[in-house]
């Protein structure tokens, strides 16, 4: 048996982005001995890439904003598939979480009277996003990181968790992983585990996601017997870079449009006016003249369609390109150069200016950007109880992108950063409460630990010509081509069959080299996660025979009432992926009035 290092904690948090950091801070402050385990160095998680802002009804720009309007916008943006209670908690608590970040040192941009400035974003009725230029995620992760360091949380960096450990009753009581630097295995005993590992974009070819986003936490939960919900709901952000090829997929913040940027096709036409769905027609400007008035007078004019929710804009761009009206490199144009002065652009969007200048040789103060959809976010994820983030497995909690429900079938921009801190805190709280109520030290099964380490090591013994890089490339091609922004039954079935072949191939991957910082080995293990979540996404996408939010079926256009209140639930039963359709929690009638009032 391989030697493993052993640590015991009350709470182990896996993932150190916004959700994981916030969960660990809460657990620690409640007195739980807390470990934070992350696959990269501390402070490098995908949260740093968040650009536009954190949505919270602070009301510092629009006093008429409040949690009910935010709740309504979130539910409508998610095409009502959201877990209503999560959306409610989120809207209620986001302002406190933003102010708390400020108390921990974050410096948000200010209004002229010194309060937190808020910015317009798609689907938000009022300017609602607290922000720091276009690098809000960095500000947030740094504030949380400093706080975590200040209160002395034990951080285990560059540590990949391979499997969770469970007691005889199935309750999670630890995790096994290894340090990437040395390859040395480590066992964590834990009374509660919080999964905060983020998303799964690396299963697609064109993605805004960073290296780490391989669906690890969703897969860990799945393997431990937890339910995943609505995995078909993948957000393709409408504006990713399309050129140069190596930068394809890189995010272009929605803040460009919030600050006045508009979408144009090859002919210079502002095509978004041709794509206003009836669902949003009442609140959307239907002419260029009205839309342009809105930038100056937001009270009396309706919002430009460029700021429709992301699923709507992504589909519109996709259609324009398909119709042959795209830009030279297969996107459309995003023009802020003709709408703002160079000084304003550099001040409001410094990272975007830098990114295009450095990577594409494009000066966005003079030239329109070329943009197109990029795989950005998983709305689906681990099924959790709204108030505690408890999964369907005892002792296991989940928060942030790894958890499902909050965003329904489409997430509004800015609602992710707030999701991280609102539900990160609640997950940390619930995990700490469980852990502090349990006596003793968790007894982990040495047999389980040995099974995990042997499995992880098995790739070194494999004798084949299969390598993880090739399987990963083929997986990305498959998901991009067959489980992309527009889906059909035939392609999804093809994807399902291909995934079976890829899963088989991945299990034979042979790894060269030794245990020390070996990316080929790390990828082989990450592939296990990516394949698991890709399977769940594909299965759910086959079964949701309608179009809703981030899930668009060419063969089933539009909403269908029989899917309105249904979650697609995937779980593993005897090693097989099983899908069931289960009713989602029903919203109380008194909340429905929010939608009536908000409709005018």
């Amino acid at each position: 048996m391989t030697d493993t290092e052993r640590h015991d904690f009350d709470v182990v948090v896996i993932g150190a982005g916004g959700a994981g950091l916030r969960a660990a801070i809460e657990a620690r402050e409640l007195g739980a001995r807390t470990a934070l385990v992350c696959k990269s160095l501390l402070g490098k998680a995908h949260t740093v890439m968040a650009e536009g802002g954190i949505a919270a009804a602070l009301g510092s720009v629009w006093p008429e904003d409040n949690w009910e309007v935010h709740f309504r916008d979130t539910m409508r943006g998610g095409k009502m598939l959201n877990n209503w209670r999560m959306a409610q908690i989120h809207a209620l608590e986001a302002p406190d979480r933003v102010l708390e970040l400020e108390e921990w040192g974050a410096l948000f941009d200010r209004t002229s009277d010194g309060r937190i400035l808020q910015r317009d974003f798609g689907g938000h009725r009022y300017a609602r996003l607290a922000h720091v230029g276009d690098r809000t995620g960095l500000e947030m992760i740094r504030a949380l990181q400093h706080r975590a360091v200040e209160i002395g949380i034990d951080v285990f960096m560059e540590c990949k968790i391979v499997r969770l450990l469970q007691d005889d009753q199935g309750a999670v009581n630890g995790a096994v992983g290894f340090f990437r630097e040395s390859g040395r295995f480590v066992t964590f005993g834990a009374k509660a585990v919080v999964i905060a590992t983020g998303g799964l974009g690396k299963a697609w070819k064109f993605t805004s996601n960073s290296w780490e986003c391989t669906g690890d936490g969703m897969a860990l939960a799945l393997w431990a017997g937890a339910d995943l919900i609505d995995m078909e709901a993948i957000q393709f952000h409408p504006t990713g870079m399309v050129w140069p090829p190596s930068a394809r997929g890189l995010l272009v913040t929605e803040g460009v449009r919030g600050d006045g940027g508009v979408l144009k096709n090859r002919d210079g036409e502002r095509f978004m006016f041709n794509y206003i769905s009836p669902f949003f027609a009442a609140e959307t400007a239907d002419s260029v003249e009205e839309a342009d008035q809105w930038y100056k007078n937001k009270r009396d004019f309706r919002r430009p369609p460029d700021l429709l929710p992301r699923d709507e804009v992504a589909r519109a761009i996709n259609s324009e390109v398909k119709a042959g009206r795209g830009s030279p490199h297969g996107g459309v144009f995003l023009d802020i150069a003709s709408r703002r002065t160079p000084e304003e652009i550099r001040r409001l969007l410094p990272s975007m200016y830098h990114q295009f200048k450095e990577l594409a040789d494009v000066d966005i103060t003079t030239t329109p950007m070329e943009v197109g959809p990029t795989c950005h976010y998983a709305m689906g994820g681990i099924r959790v109880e709204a108030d505690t983030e408890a999964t369907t497995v005892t002792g296991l909690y989940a928060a942030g992108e790894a958890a499902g429900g909050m965003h329904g079938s489409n997430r509004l921009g800015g609602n992710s950063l707030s999701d991280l801190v609102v539900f990160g805190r609640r997950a940390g709280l619930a995990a700490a409460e469980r852990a502090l109520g349990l006596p003793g030290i968790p007894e982990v099964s040495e047999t389980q630990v040995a099974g995990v380490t042997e499995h992880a090591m098995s790739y070194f013994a494999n004798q084949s010509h299969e390598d993880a890089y090739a399987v990963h490339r083929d997986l990305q091609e498959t998901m991009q081509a067959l489980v992309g922004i527009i889906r059909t039954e035939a392609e999804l079935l093809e994807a399902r069959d291909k995934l079976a072949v890829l899963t088989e191939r991945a299990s034979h991957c042979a790894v060269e080299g030794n245990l020390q910082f070996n990316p080929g080995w790390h990828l082989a293990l990450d592939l296990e996660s990516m394949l698991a979540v890709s399977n769940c996404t594909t299965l759910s996408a086959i079964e949701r025979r309608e179009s809703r939010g981030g899930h668009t079926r060419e063969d089933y256009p539009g909403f269908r009432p029989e899917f309105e209140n249904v979650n697609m639930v995937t779980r593993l039963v005897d090693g097989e992926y099983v899908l069931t359709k289960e009713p989602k929690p029903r919203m109380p009638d008194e909340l429905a009035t929010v939608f009536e009032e908000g409709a005018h």
Partner: protein
Amino acid sequence: MAIDTGPAPSQAPQPSPEPPPADLVMRLWRGDASGGRFQDYHVTPQEGEVVLDVVHRIQATQAPDLAVRWNCKAGKCGSCSAEINGRPRLMCMTRMSTLPTDEPITISPMRAFPIMRDLVTDVSYNFEVAKLIPAFKPRPRDPDGLYRMAQVDIDRGQEFHKCIECFLCQNVCHVIRDHEDNKPRYAGPRFFVRLAELEMHPLDTLDRRDYIHRDMGIGLCNITKCCTEVCPEDIHITDNAIIPLKERIVDSRYDPVAWLGRKITGRPAPLPAAQARKHTGAAHQQPAAPAPPKPGAGA
């Protein structure tokens, strides 16, 4: 295929009459704490690629166990720091088209930190220093539960908050790059930026000046501006963070009232013109950029 060239750089330039694509040689440092050497990999760069793309392709096709740290590939996380042709840079923000292709492109790990494997170094020193920084201590909120700060009072702090912790400034700082023994008593440019950010934060109430002077070793910095030169976020580390910190420390010994005033307004004190000139002059006597180390010199 990997071609082991041994210690002597011997690749003859391969003139290509019709670029692109031109075949070129990437000379990567391979090894671990016990030693290593440069190995050459032949690659064909594609349109618009950055160095990290090419390193990834080498990994995927020629050297699956090549260790390299990276996350975002967008210049936002600061993970992929290395020395490219001797210059400390982010691999993800260095376009191949900006590098000369008539000779091998050398990529070596950051020199100021112990090697773990290949291009990955042990940067734990930085995380240890981070634990020593006296944390942010804000004043109480206004009666309505909010904090108010003028944008002008946080502009400087926001500049410092752009730091992505790539540690290139630490890597290139002579105080620790050339003198490992200074590490226990020297925080380094990244943490002077952090300390300046705290000291200039309009809400902060703590006085860290004695600590910065006594324990963070700011006196060892002789403002050569190497850190500023390599900062991928264009933070004016020397001028805006280190020099004002040095000024405040000197000030505090003579003028506690001025310190208190600044603490209340949150505004950094303007440098007296003569002093500003003096500092700029001093900096200009130093090399504008770190001299490229000889390949393998630090390995």
